[in-house]
């Protein structure tokens, strides 16, 4: 396989973005990524676009070729990738693979979503399609509900406390407050988190990400050419992608997601590193408890120790591994199909030394994207060239 590098990234701000549709958002992020390099548009050979609920909420199919057309890229293969909230991570993975395997040299990848024009019940129902409708979601379970079932079990089994879980929200809102791209620019206190409105007991409003609009993009090429097109190229050290059970009842242990564990194993092996080598990570905190489980499944902390690690500051900006310096999904926002590419955007900025919440001397970074309650996951490991 050929080594692959990222030579340009772009991201819209996340939030309620008035006057921009799902295509506009994608085009804006892609233009920013393309403008970072002197690569002429004619050199781009393929486009992969992550999107989850655009057909349902934004009435737009054929999304990838439509966006490619607005970018002046009509003619190249343009493919929408759907894997629930991991759609963006999978789109990135496909761009990486096509270059690594020698099929293409320049590939544009992106993720986009437009959600704020829909009502909360419509969004809740659209997101619930990530589950197994026939065998689980028809009960009326929602994704906050699924992670609430998981949170209760994690607390019962490992003694993880409400306060430890709430501190994920406090940390991520504090970081989001300093990130100009973030939807929430305001810190919250632990008291506010544990007193916020119940969404699906025991998950409360500040345990959840907001409903968001946004898009992010990256331009990839073989690593050996990267310096010709970018002063600070970032190398893809490892990539993993795996599926898992769609329903909670199919899992022997609902406090761990096998898709994350498997994707991480693949990515670590490809990169030739261990979890201890990672200094900064963007993980899929679709709920506060999901960040704690991700830090355990990724091997940063032993099983059941993710809660104490947050309380001890080991996931803070100057902790053992800085987790979600962007503010994560909870504070930066979660335009679901865009999230995987937005994680890559943040980590490229970190490795270039250009991040809003800069982790000092970051050399190895990890992005973890999760769909549903573990039905799919991608793990991407990045490093300086």
């Amino acid at each position: 396989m050929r080594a692959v590098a990222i030579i340009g990234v772009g991201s819209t701000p996340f939030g309620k973005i008035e006057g921009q549709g799902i295509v506009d958002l994608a085009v804006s992020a892609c233009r920013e990524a393309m403008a970072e390099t002197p690569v002429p548009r004619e050199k781009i050979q393929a486009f992969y676009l992550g999107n989850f609920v655009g057909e349902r909420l934004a009435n737009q199919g054929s999304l990838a070729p439509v966006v490619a057309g607005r970018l002046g890229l009509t003619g190249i293969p343009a493919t929408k990738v759907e894997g629930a909230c991991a759609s963006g991570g999978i789109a990135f993975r496909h761009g990486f693979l096509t270059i690594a395997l020698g099929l293409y040299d320049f590939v544009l990848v992106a993720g986009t979503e437009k959600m704020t024009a829909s009502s909360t019940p419509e969004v809740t129902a659209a997101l619930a399609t990530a589950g197994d409708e026939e065998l689980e979601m028809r009960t009326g379970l929602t994704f906050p509900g699924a992670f609430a079932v998981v949170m209760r079990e994690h607390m019962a089994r490992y003694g993880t406390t409400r306060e430890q879980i709430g501190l994920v929200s406090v940390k991520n809102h504090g970081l989001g407050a300093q990130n100009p791209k973030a939807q929430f620019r305001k810190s919250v206190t632990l008291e506010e988190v544990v007193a916020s409105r119940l969404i699906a007991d025991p998950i409360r409003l500040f345990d959840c990400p907001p409903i968001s609009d946004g898009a992010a993009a990256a331009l990839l090429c073989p690593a050996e050419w990267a310096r010709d097109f970018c002063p600070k190229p970032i190398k893809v050290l490892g990539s993993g992608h795996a599926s898992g059970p769609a329903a909670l009842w199919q899992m022997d242990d609902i406090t761990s997601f096998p898709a994350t564990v498997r994707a991480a194993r693949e990515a670590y092996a490809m990169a030739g590193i261990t979890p201890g080598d990672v200094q900064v990570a963007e993980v899929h905190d679709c709920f506060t408890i999901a960040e704690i489980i991700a830090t355990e499944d990724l091997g940063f902390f032993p099983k059941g120790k993710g809660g104490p690690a947050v309380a001890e500051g080991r996931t803070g900006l100057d902790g053992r591994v800085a987790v979600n310096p962007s503010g994560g999904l909870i504070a930066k926002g979660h335009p679901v199909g865009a999230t995987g590419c937005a994680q890559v955007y943040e980590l490229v900025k970190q490795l270039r030394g250009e991040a809003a919440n800069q982790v000092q001397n970051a050399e190895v970074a990890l992005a973890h994207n999760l769909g549903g309650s573990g039905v799919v996951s991608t793990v991407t490991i990045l490093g300086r060239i």
Partner: protein
Amino acid sequence: MLRGRRCAACKRLWLDAARACPACGAPGGETVQLSGNGRLLSWTTIRVPPARYAAEAPYTVGLVELDEGFRLTVRLTADPETLAPGLPVAFASQDDSRGPIFRTS
């Protein structure tokens, strides 16, 4: 009554509606009557429902383990204040839209 299916290939037991075995993918198998009795593992009360169940919230969904040794996610008719891990639960009725409905027993 609640019916299960024992996989012809790997012999694992699943809810009848699973059709092909969710563990090994094999089709077929033998239909078996289930006791409908089990215990509660974890649960949530849904306060922000999907659009189709908007009129029913709040309602409770539980993850239960049947006495036969496999798990189900079910709508649970119970006062959420009385729920605890390990609480005995039982099959109450089959709902065409929502699947099996359980109650505390």
